């Protein structure tokens, strides 16, 4: 395995230590635990903090998104493993003096179980914490069963929009309702082109033939719509957007925020070509775009591929989306 690290067991700790040293103006370790990263300058005590726990190996999400206008804390699990509920609880406790706490949970088995455990334990300690389960990946469950879908790159819209909203002293329920509103207006579909190498096993994470791609594969190689031959950006984008537009009513005159997320080794050159084809496709349907996000944000090591997410917006969402954030690795 050609990866640069020291001791395999310390990959996550070394990475966090580098991150906190590099961006000490904005982030720091929590006092109690070095797997909890918080803002250097805490959020006002009257505002509702936003937290998430997630496995490592997908950087910059979510550890890179801590900062004003975005997350307040990230509870960092081992590589590809959600942090335990105990650890998430420790994160929630840091903010027990706030009027409420919102725990974001991306819909994956481990994340949900541990997140729910943390919320239950918090309740027992009279901490006002609620969770929002995020899902958007249309390949992982059919229409009508949206809540069984996995959390994909489109969950980014939720982080950013309620991250901005939470700076405006809104109460927990407003954040929850805006969060689920954003979620319900988001659709994501991904394509895997080549597998990255797991730092744990030193092996490829999944197998895929040299001329094949995989539509709808999850971040760890879980399947979706199945394999296809490699095709042009234009055809691939058409295929993917057709599925997305079939799944949800993106209509003439709508203003959508597109997010093209690279999985790791797919170049920005390619992502921009893909974006060009997205714009062309949407303009044929008279769907307008607003401040797209195009880069590597949710990666699976050095995997090749990308996802397309669309959020159908209203004016408030757009304002919150473009609200500045100080997070070291989130940039519109």
């Amino acid at each position, binding site marked *: 395995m050609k990866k640069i690290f020291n001791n395999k067991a310390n990959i996550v700790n070394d990475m966090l230590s580098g991150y906190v040293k590099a961006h000490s103006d904005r982030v720091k370790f929590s006092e109690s635990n070095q797997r909890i990263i918080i803002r250097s300058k805490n959020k006002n005590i009257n505002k509702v903090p936003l937290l998430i726990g997630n496995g490592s190996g997908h950087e910059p999400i979510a550890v890179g998104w801590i900062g004003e206008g975005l997350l307040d804390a990230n509870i960092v699990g081992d590589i590809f493993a959600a942090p335990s509920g105990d650890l998430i609880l420790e994160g929630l406790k840091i903010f027990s003096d706030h009027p409420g706490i919102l725990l974001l949970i991306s819909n994956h088995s481990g994340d949900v*179980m541990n997140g729910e455990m943390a919320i239950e334990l918090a309740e027992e300690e009279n901490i006002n914490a609620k969770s929002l389960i995020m899902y958007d990946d249309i390949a*992982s469950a059919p229409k009508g069963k949206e809540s069984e879908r996995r959390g994909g790159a489109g969950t980014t819209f939720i982080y950013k929009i309620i991250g901005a909203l939470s700076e405006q002293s809104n109460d927990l329920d407003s954040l929850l309702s805006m969060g689920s509103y954003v979620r319900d207006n988001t659709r994501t579909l991904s394509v895997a082109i080549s597998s990255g190498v797991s730092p744990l096993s030193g092996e490829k994470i999944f197998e895929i033939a040299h001329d094949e791609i995989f539509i709808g594969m999850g971040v760890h190689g*879980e399947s979706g719509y199945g394999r296809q031959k490699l095709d042009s950006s234009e055809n691939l984008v058409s295929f993917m957007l057709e599925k997305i537009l079939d799944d949800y009513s993106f209509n003439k005159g709508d203003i959508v925020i597109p997010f093209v997320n690279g999985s790791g080794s797919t170049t920005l050159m390619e992502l921009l070509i893909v974006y060009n084809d997205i714009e062309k496709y949407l303009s044929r349907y008279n769907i307008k775009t607003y401040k797209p996000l195009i880069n590597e944000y949710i990666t699976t090591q050095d995997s090749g591929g990308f996802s397309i997410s669309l959020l159908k917006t209203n004016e408030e969402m757009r304002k919150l989306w473009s609200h500045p954030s100080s997070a070291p690795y989130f940039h519109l």
Partner: protein
Amino acid sequence: MINFHKKWIKNSYVKIKDEYQLLDKLDQELGDGDHGTTIFRGLEHAVNSFSSIDQNDPIHFMKEISKTMRIAMGGASGILMSIFFAEIGNLQKLNSSILDILNNTIIKIKKRGNVKVGDKSILDVYVPIFNYLENNNQYQIDNIMKLIDDSVNKTKIMEAKVGRAKFLETKGVGVIDPGALSTSMILKEFFKERNNEENI
């Protein structure tokens, strides 16, 4: 009793140390390829934490062990597999019944994992043993061992309804569930050690 618990955990750790790569390989086919590494990490932390836990109360001792494993493992398996370890604290004497412990483990896994028998998971190892013991006051160690192995093998033909494997094209059919296999190893070490100590 705590010496028994410690021996069992130690033996499980040694066993998993030998087999974690196989478990990773199975999880590579069904999930993200880390199940062996994960359970190994959990047991390693458990073994290393013995000396720092008060050893007078088995319930307390195993709760701490369970928490240590849950934190060290994380993921889907940490929270689910640690349940049995917490419950086992209730085994106050070597010859006390394990039925309640298995029953509570099963109830809690079902609830937390939102999982049923046949969904291709660790549950598919616990439930057959519980059923067997419920119907057999006495048991032969060899029968238990065989039952556990059989239960694991049956997961091979199951379609996954939970965990990452449920998103596979194949639903995981044709591959043994890694969580079931590691659970079986830990359970076998449990019954083996119990048998040893009874025979002393």
